[in-house]
Protein backbone atom coordinates (compact mmCIF):
# COMPACT_ATOMS: atom_id res chain seq x y z
CA UNK A 1 0.00 0.00 0.00
CA UNK A 2 2.67 2.40 1.16
CA UNK A 3 4.81 1.65 -1.87
CA UNK A 4 1.80 2.25 -4.11
CA UNK A 5 1.14 5.67 -2.62
CA UNK A 6 4.76 6.68 -2.75
CA UNK A 7 5.04 5.64 -6.38
CA UNK A 8 1.92 7.62 -7.27
CA UNK A 9 3.19 10.76 -5.43
CA UNK A 10 6.58 10.63 -7.07
CA UNK A 11 5.01 10.11 -10.49
CA UNK A 12 2.72 13.08 -9.99
CA UNK A 13 5.63 15.22 -8.89
CA UNK A 14 7.61 14.24 -11.94
CA UNK A 15 4.83 14.92 -14.41
CA UNK A 16 3.07 17.85 -12.72
CA UNK A 17 4.99 20.91 -13.85
CA UNK A 18 5.08 20.15 -17.56
CA UNK A 19 5.45 23.84 -18.50
CA UNK A 20 8.87 24.05 -16.90
CA UNK A 21 11.72 22.99 -19.14
CA UNK A 22 13.83 20.14 -17.91
CA UNK A 23 17.33 20.72 -19.28
CA UNK A 24 19.37 17.65 -19.91
CA UNK A 25 22.82 18.18 -18.48
CA UNK A 26 25.30 17.99 -21.34
CA UNK A 27 28.63 16.38 -20.90
CA UNK A 28 31.03 19.21 -20.14
CA UNK A 29 34.68 18.53 -20.79
CA UNK A 30 37.30 19.86 -18.45
CA UNK A 31 38.76 22.53 -20.79
CA UNK A 32 38.47 25.96 -19.28
CA UNK A 33 40.03 28.65 -17.14
CA UNK A 34 41.34 27.18 -13.93
CA UNK A 35 42.52 29.36 -11.11
CA UNK A 36 45.71 27.71 -9.83
CA UNK A 37 45.22 26.65 -6.21
CA UNK A 38 48.07 28.82 -4.92
CA UNK A 39 46.99 31.97 -6.82
CA UNK A 40 44.62 34.68 -5.59
CA UNK A 41 41.24 35.29 -7.27
CA UNK A 42 41.58 36.70 -10.80
CA UNK A 43 40.44 40.21 -11.65
CA UNK A 44 38.81 39.21 -14.95
CA UNK A 45 35.93 36.82 -14.65
CA UNK A 46 34.62 36.58 -18.23
CA UNK A 47 31.39 38.21 -17.07
CA UNK A 48 30.19 39.62 -20.37
CA UNK A 49 32.38 37.25 -22.34
CA UNK A 50 31.44 33.68 -21.56
CA UNK A 51 34.49 31.50 -22.08
CA UNK A 52 34.20 28.92 -24.86
CA UNK A 53 36.69 26.84 -26.77
CA UNK A 54 35.50 28.32 -30.11
CA UNK A 55 36.00 31.88 -28.91
CA UNK A 56 39.40 30.99 -27.49
CA UNK A 57 40.45 29.38 -30.78
CA UNK A 58 39.17 32.40 -32.68
CA UNK A 59 41.21 34.64 -30.40
CA UNK A 60 44.22 32.45 -31.08
CA UNK A 61 43.80 32.83 -34.85
CA UNK A 62 43.51 36.59 -34.48
CA UNK A 63 46.55 36.74 -32.17
CA UNK A 64 48.71 35.10 -34.80
CA UNK A 65 47.19 36.92 -37.79
CA UNK A 66 48.94 39.99 -39.28
CA UNK A 67 45.58 40.98 -40.80
CA UNK A 68 45.27 43.23 -37.74
CA UNK A 69 48.02 45.47 -39.10
CA UNK A 70 47.94 48.04 -41.89
CA UNK A 71 49.93 46.08 -44.46
CA UNK A 72 49.47 42.61 -42.98
CA UNK A 73 53.07 42.35 -41.81
CA UNK A 74 52.70 42.56 -38.03
CA UNK A 75 50.66 40.28 -35.79
CA UNK A 76 50.42 40.24 -31.99
CA UNK A 77 52.78 37.28 -32.06
CA UNK A 78 55.40 39.32 -33.91
CA UNK A 79 56.23 41.08 -30.64
CA UNK A 80 54.74 38.52 -28.25
CA UNK A 81 56.34 35.22 -29.20
CA UNK A 82 55.49 32.03 -27.34
CA UNK A 83 59.11 30.81 -27.29
CA UNK A 84 60.01 33.98 -25.38
CA UNK A 85 57.11 33.54 -22.94
CA UNK A 86 55.07 35.92 -25.11
CA UNK A 87 57.60 38.75 -24.98
CA UNK A 88 59.56 39.93 -28.02
CA UNK A 89 62.53 38.14 -29.59
CA UNK A 90 65.06 39.54 -27.13
CA UNK A 91 65.11 43.09 -28.46
CA UNK A 92 64.85 46.21 -26.28
CA UNK A 93 62.22 47.89 -28.48
CA UNK A 94 59.98 46.23 -31.02
CA UNK A 95 59.46 47.21 -34.62
CA UNK A 96 56.05 47.79 -36.09
CA UNK A 97 54.71 48.32 -39.59
CA UNK A 98 57.43 49.80 -41.81
CA UNK A 99 60.10 48.99 -39.23
CA UNK A 100 59.35 51.90 -36.88
CA UNK A 101 60.66 51.35 -33.36
CA UNK A 102 58.25 51.46 -30.44
CA UNK A 103 59.01 53.34 -27.24
CA UNK A 104 58.90 50.64 -24.59
CA UNK A 105 59.98 47.03 -24.15
CA UNK A 106 57.32 44.51 -25.10
CA UNK A 107 55.99 42.95 -21.86
CA UNK A 108 55.69 39.17 -21.48
CA UNK A 109 52.03 38.17 -21.63
CA UNK A 110 51.05 35.82 -18.85
CA UNK A 111 48.58 35.83 -15.96
CA UNK A 112 46.79 38.82 -17.48
CA UNK A 113 43.50 37.77 -15.87
CA UNK A 114 45.01 38.95 -12.56
CA UNK A 115 46.02 42.40 -13.78
CA UNK A 116 43.91 45.39 -12.69
CA UNK A 117 45.39 47.43 -15.54
CA UNK A 118 47.81 47.05 -18.44
CA UNK A 119 50.93 48.54 -20.02
CA UNK A 120 54.03 49.95 -18.31
CA UNK A 121 52.07 53.08 -17.32
CA UNK A 122 48.83 51.28 -16.50
CA UNK A 123 46.90 53.36 -19.01
CA UNK A 124 44.61 50.55 -20.06
CA UNK A 125 41.95 49.39 -17.63
CA UNK A 126 40.41 46.33 -19.27
CA UNK A 127 41.71 43.22 -21.02
CA UNK A 128 38.97 43.54 -23.65
CA UNK A 129 39.98 47.03 -24.79
CA UNK A 130 43.69 46.29 -24.47
CA UNK A 131 44.05 45.15 -28.08
CA UNK A 132 42.83 48.50 -29.43
CA UNK A 133 46.14 50.08 -28.37
CA UNK A 134 48.63 48.02 -30.42
CA UNK A 135 46.24 47.83 -33.37
CA UNK A 136 45.86 51.62 -33.62
CA UNK A 137 49.36 52.67 -32.50
CA UNK A 138 51.22 54.34 -35.39
CA UNK A 139 54.49 52.74 -34.28
CA UNK A 140 52.99 49.26 -33.99
CA UNK A 141 50.18 47.96 -36.24
CA UNK A 142 49.20 51.35 -37.63
CA UNK A 143 45.63 50.25 -38.40
CA UNK A 144 42.15 51.44 -37.48
CA UNK A 145 39.69 49.12 -35.78
CA UNK A 146 37.02 49.89 -38.37
CA UNK A 147 39.38 48.87 -41.17
CA UNK A 148 40.20 45.60 -39.42
CA UNK A 149 36.46 44.91 -39.27
CA UNK A 150 36.20 45.48 -43.04
CA UNK A 151 39.00 42.97 -43.60
CA UNK A 152 37.48 40.39 -41.26
CA UNK A 153 34.02 40.76 -42.80
CA UNK A 154 35.55 40.18 -46.21
CA UNK A 155 37.13 36.93 -45.08
CA UNK A 156 35.02 33.80 -45.53
CA UNK A 157 37.31 32.09 -43.01
CA UNK A 158 36.60 34.62 -40.27
CA UNK A 159 32.90 34.91 -41.13
CA UNK A 160 32.62 31.19 -40.54
CA UNK A 161 34.67 31.28 -37.32
CA UNK A 162 32.69 34.15 -35.84
CA UNK A 163 29.41 32.48 -36.80
CA UNK A 164 30.55 29.33 -35.02
CA UNK A 165 31.67 31.15 -31.91
CA UNK A 166 29.10 33.95 -31.57
CA UNK A 167 26.23 32.97 -33.90
CA UNK A 168 26.52 36.20 -35.92
CA UNK A 169 26.42 36.85 -39.64
CA UNK A 170 28.32 40.13 -39.32
CA UNK A 171 31.49 40.65 -37.29
CA UNK A 172 31.56 43.61 -34.89
CA UNK A 173 34.66 44.87 -33.09
CA UNK A 174 33.46 43.93 -29.61
CA UNK A 175 33.46 40.27 -30.65
CA UNK A 176 36.97 40.50 -32.03
CA UNK A 177 38.17 42.18 -28.84
CA UNK A 178 36.44 39.61 -26.67
CA UNK A 179 37.95 36.68 -28.58
CA UNK A 180 41.43 38.15 -28.20
CA UNK A 181 40.72 38.72 -24.51
CA UNK A 182 39.81 35.07 -24.07
CA UNK A 183 43.04 33.90 -25.70
CA UNK A 184 45.15 36.28 -23.64
CA UNK A 185 43.39 35.44 -20.38
CA UNK A 186 44.09 31.75 -20.92
CA UNK A 187 47.86 32.37 -20.99
CA UNK A 188 48.33 31.32 -17.39
CA UNK A 189 51.84 30.75 -16.09
CA UNK A 190 51.68 28.64 -12.94
CA UNK A 191 53.74 25.55 -13.65
CA UNK A 192 57.31 26.67 -13.15
CA UNK A 193 59.71 24.99 -10.74
CA UNK A 194 58.92 27.85 -8.34
CA UNK A 195 55.20 27.03 -8.52
CA UNK A 196 55.85 23.35 -7.95
CA UNK A 197 58.06 24.24 -5.02
CA UNK A 198 55.26 26.35 -3.53
CA UNK A 199 52.90 23.42 -3.88
CA UNK A 200 55.41 21.18 -2.13
CA UNK A 201 55.94 19.01 -5.20
CA UNK A 202 59.64 19.64 -5.78
CA UNK A 203 62.67 20.77 -3.84
CA UNK A 204 64.97 23.67 -4.58
CA UNK A 205 68.73 23.22 -4.84
CA UNK A 206 70.59 24.93 -2.02
CA UNK A 207 71.53 27.80 -4.33
CA UNK A 208 67.93 28.23 -5.48
CA UNK A 209 66.75 28.11 -1.89
CA UNK A 210 69.29 30.73 -0.79
CA UNK A 211 68.21 32.87 -3.70
CA UNK A 212 64.54 32.44 -2.82
CA UNK A 213 65.12 33.41 0.78
CA UNK A 214 67.05 36.48 -0.30
CA UNK A 215 64.27 37.29 -2.75
CA UNK A 216 61.75 37.11 0.06
CA UNK A 217 63.82 39.43 2.21
CA UNK A 218 64.61 42.07 -0.41
CA UNK A 219 62.26 41.85 -3.38
CA UNK A 220 58.78 40.64 -2.56
CA UNK A 221 57.33 43.94 -1.36
CA UNK A 222 57.17 44.91 -5.01
CA UNK A 223 57.53 41.50 -6.66
CA UNK A 224 54.77 40.04 -4.51
CA UNK A 225 54.28 36.29 -4.48
CA UNK A 226 53.03 34.29 -6.32
CA UNK A 227 52.37 36.59 -9.29
CA UNK A 228 55.74 38.34 -8.67
CA UNK A 229 54.22 41.81 -8.97
CA UNK A 230 52.03 43.98 -6.77
CA UNK A 231 50.91 45.98 -9.83
CA UNK A 232 52.11 49.23 -8.24
CA UNK A 233 54.00 51.99 -10.03
CA UNK A 234 57.53 52.57 -8.82
CA UNK A 235 60.61 54.55 -9.64
CA UNK A 236 63.40 52.03 -9.10
CA UNK A 237 66.23 54.50 -9.55
CA UNK A 238 67.10 53.88 -13.19
CA UNK A 239 67.51 57.51 -14.20
CA UNK A 240 67.92 61.02 -12.88
CA UNK A 241 66.27 62.54 -15.93
CA UNK A 242 63.18 60.84 -17.32
CA UNK A 243 62.86 60.72 -21.07
CA UNK A 244 59.77 58.58 -20.52
CA UNK A 245 57.49 60.08 -17.88
CA UNK A 246 55.86 56.69 -17.27
CA UNK A 247 52.84 56.69 -14.98
CA UNK A 248 52.76 60.51 -14.93
CA UNK A 249 51.54 60.45 -18.54
CA UNK A 250 48.32 58.96 -17.22
CA UNK A 251 47.89 60.60 -13.82
CA UNK A 252 49.55 63.94 -14.69
CA UNK A 253 51.00 63.88 -11.16
CA UNK A 254 54.51 65.26 -10.62
CA UNK A 255 55.36 62.47 -8.18
CA UNK A 256 54.55 59.81 -10.78
CA UNK A 257 57.26 60.90 -13.21
CA UNK A 258 59.62 58.04 -13.98
CA UNK A 259 57.38 55.47 -12.34
CA UNK A 260 56.60 52.25 -14.17
CA UNK A 261 54.54 49.22 -13.27
CA UNK A 262 56.42 46.52 -11.36
CA UNK A 263 56.74 43.83 -14.04
CA UNK A 264 56.02 40.19 -13.39
CA UNK A 265 59.24 38.17 -13.11
CA UNK A 266 57.66 35.01 -14.40
CA UNK A 267 59.80 33.49 -17.15
CA UNK A 268 62.28 36.28 -16.53
CA UNK A 269 65.21 34.19 -17.78
CA UNK A 270 63.51 34.02 -21.21
CA UNK A 271 62.25 37.58 -21.49
CA UNK A 272 65.48 39.65 -21.64
CA UNK A 273 66.26 42.47 -22.13
CA UNK A 274 64.87 44.08 -18.99
CA UNK A 275 63.22 47.32 -17.73
CA UNK A 276 60.69 49.54 -19.52
CA UNK A 277 63.18 50.40 -22.27
CA UNK A 278 64.98 47.06 -22.38
CA UNK A 279 68.31 48.53 -21.31
CA UNK A 280 69.67 45.51 -19.40
CA UNK A 281 70.43 42.43 -21.47
CA UNK A 282 71.27 39.99 -18.70
CA UNK A 283 70.08 39.08 -15.23
CA UNK A 284 73.65 39.85 -14.15
CA UNK A 285 73.24 43.41 -15.35
CA UNK A 286 69.96 43.73 -13.46
CA UNK A 287 71.45 42.33 -10.26
CA UNK A 288 74.48 44.63 -10.60
CA UNK A 289 72.08 47.54 -11.01
CA UNK A 290 70.08 46.65 -7.90
CA UNK A 291 73.35 46.13 -6.02
CA UNK A 292 75.19 49.33 -6.71
CA UNK A 293 73.59 51.05 -9.67
CA UNK A 294 70.51 52.70 -8.12
CA UNK A 295 70.29 56.45 -8.71
CA UNK A 296 68.98 58.12 -5.59
CA UNK A 297 66.58 60.96 -6.15
CA UNK A 298 63.59 62.21 -4.13
CA UNK A 299 61.25 60.06 -6.15
CA UNK A 300 63.39 56.93 -6.09
CA UNK A 301 61.39 54.34 -4.22
CA UNK A 302 62.61 54.07 -0.65
CA UNK A 303 62.55 50.29 -0.91
CA UNK A 304 65.53 50.34 -3.28
CA UNK A 305 67.32 53.50 -2.24
CA UNK A 306 70.97 52.97 -1.61
CA UNK A 307 70.95 49.66 -3.43
CA UNK A 308 71.25 46.18 -1.96
CA UNK A 309 75.00 45.63 -2.34
CA UNK A 310 74.64 41.92 -3.10
CA UNK A 311 77.78 39.81 -2.86
CA UNK A 312 78.69 37.74 -5.91
CA UNK A 313 77.45 34.54 -4.28
CA UNK A 314 74.18 36.28 -3.43
CA UNK A 315 73.84 37.37 -7.03
CA UNK A 316 74.53 33.86 -8.16
CA UNK A 317 71.89 32.45 -5.81
CA UNK A 318 69.32 35.05 -6.85
CA UNK A 319 69.97 34.22 -10.48
CA UNK A 320 69.45 30.52 -9.72
CA UNK A 321 66.15 31.34 -8.06
CA UNK A 322 64.99 33.62 -10.87
CA UNK A 323 65.58 30.80 -13.33
CA UNK A 324 63.07 28.66 -11.43
CA UNK A 325 60.39 31.07 -12.63
CA UNK A 326 60.62 29.64 -16.14
CA UNK A 327 57.40 27.85 -17.06
CA UNK A 328 58.15 25.38 -19.84
CA UNK A 329 54.49 24.43 -20.02
CA UNK A 330 53.45 27.92 -21.09
CA UNK A 331 56.36 28.22 -23.50
CA UNK A 332 55.74 24.81 -25.03
CA UNK A 333 51.98 24.29 -24.88
CA UNK A 334 50.70 23.64 -28.42
CA UNK A 335 47.31 25.05 -27.37
CA UNK A 336 48.94 28.50 -27.47
CA UNK A 337 51.07 27.93 -30.57
CA UNK A 338 50.33 29.22 -34.07
CA UNK A 339 47.12 27.51 -35.21
CA UNK A 340 46.75 25.72 -38.50
CA UNK A 341 44.12 26.97 -40.92
Amino acid at each position, binding site marked *: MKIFFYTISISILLFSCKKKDVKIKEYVDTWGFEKPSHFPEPDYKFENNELSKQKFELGRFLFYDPILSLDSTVSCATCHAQEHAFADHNVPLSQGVGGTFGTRNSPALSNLAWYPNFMWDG*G*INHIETLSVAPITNMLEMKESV*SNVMVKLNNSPFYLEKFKEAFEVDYITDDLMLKSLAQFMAMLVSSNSKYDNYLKGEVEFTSSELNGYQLFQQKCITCHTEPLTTDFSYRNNGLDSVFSDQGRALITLLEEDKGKFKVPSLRNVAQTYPYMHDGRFFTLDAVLDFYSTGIIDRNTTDELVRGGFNFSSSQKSDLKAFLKTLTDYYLIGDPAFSPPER
Partner: protein
Amino acid sequence: MKNIKLTFVAFLSLTLLTVTSCKKDELEEAGTDIVESATSGSLKINLNHKWGMSNALDLVLNSEMIHPMTEDTLTFTTFKYYVSNFKLKKEDGSYWVHPESYFLVDLSNTASLELDFSDIPAGLYTDLEFTLGVDSARNVDGAQTGALSVSNDMFWSWNSGYIMLKAEGTSPNSANNTFVFHLGGFSGENNIVTEKSLSLLTTPLTIVSTKTAAIHLEVNPAKLWHSSPSVSVTNKIHMPGSAAKDMATSFYSSGSSFMVHSVE
Protein backbone atom coordinates in the same frame (compact mmCIF):
# COMPACT_ATOMS: atom_id res chain seq x y z
CA MET B 1 -4.65 1.90 9.79
CA LYS B 2 -3.09 5.09 11.15
CA ASN B 3 -0.10 4.63 8.90
CA ILE B 4 -2.22 4.39 5.79
CA LYS B 5 -4.22 7.47 6.78
CA LEU B 6 -1.03 9.51 7.37
CA THR B 7 0.48 8.34 4.14
CA PHE B 8 -2.74 9.11 2.28
CA VAL B 9 -2.87 12.63 3.77
CA ALA B 10 0.77 13.21 2.98
CA PHE B 11 0.23 11.94 -0.55
CA LEU B 12 -2.83 14.13 -1.05
CA SER B 13 -1.14 17.29 0.29
CA LEU B 14 1.90 16.68 -1.87
CA THR B 15 -0.29 16.29 -4.94
CA LEU B 16 -2.27 19.40 -4.15
CA LEU B 17 0.91 21.39 -3.50
CA THR B 18 2.53 20.49 -6.81
CA VAL B 19 -0.65 20.94 -8.81
CA THR B 20 -1.49 24.31 -7.35
CA SER B 21 2.08 25.65 -7.52
CA CYS B 22 2.16 24.89 -11.21
CA LYS B 23 -1.19 26.61 -11.75
CA LYS B 24 0.12 29.72 -9.99
CA ASP B 25 3.00 30.00 -12.46
CA GLU B 26 0.59 29.78 -15.35
CA LEU B 27 -1.54 32.54 -13.88
CA GLU B 28 1.50 34.74 -13.25
CA GLU B 29 2.63 34.31 -16.84
CA ALA B 30 -0.77 35.29 -18.16
CA GLY B 31 -0.79 38.34 -15.87
CA THR B 32 2.52 39.69 -17.23
CA ASP B 33 1.27 39.46 -20.78
CA ILE B 34 -1.73 41.63 -20.01
CA VAL B 35 0.42 44.44 -18.47
CA GLU B 36 2.84 44.63 -21.43
CA SER B 37 0.24 45.44 -24.06
CA ALA B 38 -0.87 48.80 -22.49
CA THR B 39 -0.88 51.97 -24.65
CA SER B 40 2.51 53.35 -25.56
CA GLY B 41 3.93 55.71 -28.15
CA SER B 42 7.05 57.03 -29.79
CA LEU B 43 9.16 60.15 -29.56
CA LYS B 44 11.87 61.69 -31.66
CA ILE B 45 14.28 64.28 -30.32
CA ASN B 46 15.77 66.52 -33.00
CA LEU B 47 19.07 68.26 -32.30
CA ASN B 48 19.63 71.54 -34.11
CA HIS B 49 23.14 72.92 -33.68
CA LYS B 50 23.44 76.68 -33.40
CA TRP B 51 26.22 79.19 -32.91
CA GLY B 52 26.87 82.60 -31.48
CA MET B 53 24.85 84.91 -29.28
CA SER B 54 21.16 84.05 -28.90
CA ASN B 55 21.60 81.01 -31.17
CA ALA B 56 21.37 83.40 -34.10
CA LEU B 57 23.50 81.31 -36.47
CA ASP B 58 23.64 77.66 -37.48
CA LEU B 59 26.73 75.62 -36.68
CA VAL B 60 27.81 74.18 -40.02
CA LEU B 61 30.81 71.95 -40.69
CA ASN B 62 33.51 73.17 -43.06
CA SER B 63 32.26 76.72 -42.75
CA GLU B 64 33.91 79.67 -41.01
CA MET B 65 32.38 80.30 -37.60
CA ILE B 66 33.54 83.32 -35.62
CA HIS B 67 33.49 82.94 -31.89
CA PRO B 68 31.74 85.88 -30.20
CA MET B 69 34.03 85.86 -27.15
CA THR B 70 37.47 84.66 -28.27
CA GLU B 71 36.98 86.17 -31.74
CA ASP B 72 38.65 83.10 -33.22
CA THR B 73 37.69 82.05 -36.74
CA LEU B 74 36.96 78.35 -36.48
CA THR B 75 36.22 75.93 -39.30
CA PHE B 76 34.98 72.68 -37.82
CA THR B 77 35.79 69.52 -39.75
CA THR B 78 34.54 67.22 -36.99
CA PHE B 79 32.01 67.71 -34.23
CA LYS B 80 30.73 64.65 -32.37
CA TYR B 81 29.65 63.95 -28.82
CA TYR B 82 27.83 61.39 -26.70
CA VAL B 83 24.40 61.86 -25.15
CA SER B 84 23.02 59.07 -23.01
CA ASN B 85 20.69 57.75 -20.36
CA PHE B 86 17.50 59.46 -21.48
CA LYS B 87 14.60 59.63 -19.05
CA LEU B 88 11.18 61.23 -19.17
CA LYS B 89 9.45 62.39 -16.01
CA LYS B 90 5.70 61.97 -15.94
CA GLU B 91 3.34 64.48 -14.34
CA ASP B 92 2.89 62.08 -11.41
CA GLY B 93 6.63 62.13 -10.71
CA SER B 94 7.34 58.65 -12.07
CA TYR B 95 10.00 58.05 -14.72
CA TRP B 96 10.22 56.26 -18.02
CA VAL B 97 13.84 55.19 -18.52
CA HIS B 98 15.25 54.46 -21.95
CA PRO B 99 17.14 51.18 -21.74
CA GLU B 100 20.68 50.90 -23.13
CA SER B 101 20.59 54.60 -23.90
CA TYR B 102 23.72 55.74 -25.75
CA PHE B 103 23.81 57.98 -28.82
CA LEU B 104 26.74 59.41 -30.76
CA VAL B 105 25.66 62.73 -32.23
CA ASP B 106 27.80 63.49 -35.28
CA LEU B 107 27.36 66.64 -37.31
CA SER B 108 28.65 64.85 -40.41
CA ASN B 109 25.88 62.25 -40.09
CA THR B 110 22.41 63.84 -40.41
CA ALA B 111 20.68 60.64 -39.28
CA SER B 112 22.42 60.91 -35.90
CA LEU B 113 20.77 64.29 -35.26
CA GLU B 114 17.43 62.58 -34.66
CA LEU B 115 17.18 60.38 -31.58
CA ASP B 116 14.35 57.85 -31.70
CA PHE B 117 12.51 56.40 -28.74
CA SER B 118 9.61 53.97 -28.65
CA ASP B 119 7.50 51.98 -26.19
CA ILE B 120 7.01 55.03 -23.97
CA PRO B 121 3.87 54.64 -21.82
CA ALA B 122 1.16 57.02 -22.98
CA GLY B 123 0.65 60.11 -20.86
CA LEU B 124 1.79 63.61 -20.05
CA TYR B 125 5.47 64.29 -19.40
CA THR B 126 6.95 67.35 -17.68
CA ASP B 127 10.75 66.89 -17.80
CA LEU B 128 13.39 65.50 -20.13
CA GLU B 129 16.54 64.24 -18.41
CA PHE B 130 19.69 62.95 -20.01
CA THR B 131 23.44 62.68 -19.51
CA LEU B 132 26.15 64.39 -21.49
CA GLY B 133 29.05 62.01 -21.90
CA VAL B 134 29.41 58.35 -21.01
CA ASP B 135 28.89 57.23 -17.41
CA SER B 136 31.94 55.96 -15.58
CA ALA B 137 30.75 52.33 -15.42
CA ARG B 138 30.86 52.04 -19.21
CA ASN B 139 34.35 53.51 -19.28
CA VAL B 140 35.76 50.58 -17.33
CA ASP B 141 33.54 47.78 -18.61
CA GLY B 142 35.51 46.43 -21.53
CA ALA B 143 34.39 46.04 -25.13
CA GLN B 144 31.05 47.75 -25.89
CA THR B 145 28.70 47.76 -28.85
CA GLY B 146 26.71 50.20 -30.96
CA ALA B 147 27.36 53.88 -30.27
CA LEU B 148 29.96 52.85 -27.67
CA SER B 149 31.91 50.61 -30.05
CA VAL B 150 35.62 51.52 -30.34
CA SER B 151 35.19 51.65 -34.14
CA ASN B 152 33.64 55.10 -33.71
CA ASP B 153 37.09 56.51 -32.89
CA MET B 154 35.77 57.93 -29.65
CA PHE B 155 37.88 55.84 -27.28
CA TRP B 156 41.41 56.51 -26.07
CA SER B 157 43.36 53.35 -26.70
CA TRP B 158 46.31 54.29 -24.50
CA ASN B 159 44.40 55.81 -21.58
CA SER B 160 41.18 53.81 -21.35
CA GLY B 161 38.10 55.91 -21.54
CA TYR B 162 35.68 57.53 -23.92
CA ILE B 163 36.36 60.69 -25.84
CA MET B 164 33.02 62.19 -24.91
CA LEU B 165 33.27 65.17 -27.23
CA LYS B 166 35.44 65.64 -30.27
CA ALA B 167 35.84 69.02 -31.95
CA GLU B 168 38.47 69.30 -34.68
CA GLY B 169 39.18 71.75 -37.45
CA THR B 170 41.28 74.60 -38.70
CA SER B 171 41.78 78.15 -37.53
CA PRO B 172 44.13 80.92 -38.63
CA ASN B 173 44.30 81.91 -34.95
CA SER B 174 45.93 78.63 -33.97
CA ALA B 175 49.72 78.42 -33.91
CA ASN B 176 49.70 75.39 -36.22
CA ASN B 177 46.45 76.33 -37.98
CA THR B 178 44.55 73.41 -36.48
CA PHE B 179 42.57 72.74 -33.36
CA VAL B 180 41.96 69.30 -31.86
CA PHE B 181 39.82 69.02 -28.75
CA HIS B 182 39.20 65.53 -27.36
CA LEU B 183 37.28 65.92 -24.14
CA GLY B 184 36.75 63.09 -21.68
CA GLY B 185 37.33 62.02 -18.12
CA PHE B 186 35.12 60.01 -15.81
CA SER B 187 36.78 59.78 -12.42
CA GLY B 188 37.43 62.07 -9.50
CA GLU B 189 38.41 65.64 -10.33
CA ASN B 190 38.64 64.87 -14.03
CA ASN B 191 35.02 63.77 -14.32
CA ILE B 192 33.12 65.73 -16.97
CA VAL B 193 30.01 63.56 -17.18
CA THR B 194 27.07 65.89 -16.57
CA GLU B 195 23.38 65.26 -15.99
CA LYS B 196 20.89 67.58 -17.63
CA SER B 197 17.28 68.23 -16.81
CA LEU B 198 15.12 70.20 -19.20
CA SER B 199 11.69 71.32 -18.10
CA LEU B 200 8.79 70.69 -20.44
CA LEU B 201 6.27 72.50 -18.25
CA THR B 202 5.71 75.35 -20.70
CA THR B 203 5.60 72.89 -23.62
CA PRO B 204 4.25 69.65 -22.12
CA LEU B 205 4.96 66.42 -23.92
CA THR B 206 2.03 64.12 -24.63
CA ILE B 207 2.75 60.57 -25.66
CA VAL B 208 -0.04 58.80 -27.50
CA SER B 209 -0.09 55.64 -29.57
CA THR B 210 -1.54 57.41 -32.61
CA LYS B 211 1.33 59.73 -33.51
CA THR B 212 5.08 60.20 -32.92
CA ALA B 213 5.78 63.12 -30.63
CA ALA B 214 8.78 65.38 -31.17
CA ILE B 215 11.02 67.55 -29.05
CA HIS B 216 13.20 70.04 -30.92
CA LEU B 217 16.35 70.97 -29.01
CA GLU B 218 18.76 73.73 -29.84
CA VAL B 219 22.38 73.01 -29.00
CA ASN B 220 25.01 75.75 -28.90
CA PRO B 221 28.62 74.47 -28.85
CA ALA B 222 30.01 78.02 -28.80
CA LYS B 223 29.63 77.62 -25.03
CA LEU B 224 32.73 75.40 -25.10
CA TRP B 225 34.87 78.52 -25.08
CA HIS B 226 32.99 80.45 -22.43
CA SER B 227 35.65 79.76 -19.80
CA SER B 228 38.43 78.48 -22.04
CA PRO B 229 41.05 80.50 -23.89
CA SER B 230 41.34 81.25 -27.58
CA VAL B 231 42.90 78.61 -29.81
CA SER B 232 45.92 80.91 -29.99
CA VAL B 233 46.59 79.84 -26.39
CA THR B 234 45.26 76.28 -26.38
CA ASN B 235 44.68 74.48 -29.65
CA LYS B 236 44.82 70.93 -28.35
CA ILE B 237 43.36 68.88 -25.54
CA HIS B 238 43.92 65.15 -25.83
CA MET B 239 43.32 63.64 -22.40
CA PRO B 240 41.29 64.12 -19.21
CA GLY B 241 42.41 66.92 -16.92
CA SER B 242 41.56 70.46 -15.86
CA ALA B 243 41.62 71.91 -19.39
CA ALA B 244 39.16 69.27 -20.59
CA LYS B 245 37.02 69.81 -17.53
CA ASP B 246 36.83 73.60 -17.97
CA MET B 247 35.90 73.31 -21.60
CA ALA B 248 33.41 70.46 -21.27
CA THR B 249 31.60 71.75 -18.21
CA SER B 250 31.04 75.23 -19.59
CA PHE B 251 29.24 73.60 -22.52
CA TYR B 252 27.59 70.74 -20.65
CA SER B 253 26.46 72.68 -17.59
CA SER B 254 25.30 75.94 -19.11
CA GLY B 255 21.52 76.31 -19.07
CA SER B 256 21.53 77.75 -22.56
CA SER B 257 23.67 75.07 -24.25
CA PHE B 258 20.73 72.71 -24.63
CA MET B 259 17.32 74.33 -24.88
CA VAL B 260 13.88 73.13 -25.76
CA HIS B 261 12.81 75.00 -28.87
CA SER B 262 9.47 73.35 -29.42
CA VAL B 263 7.45 70.24 -28.60
CA GLU B 264 4.94 68.54 -30.88
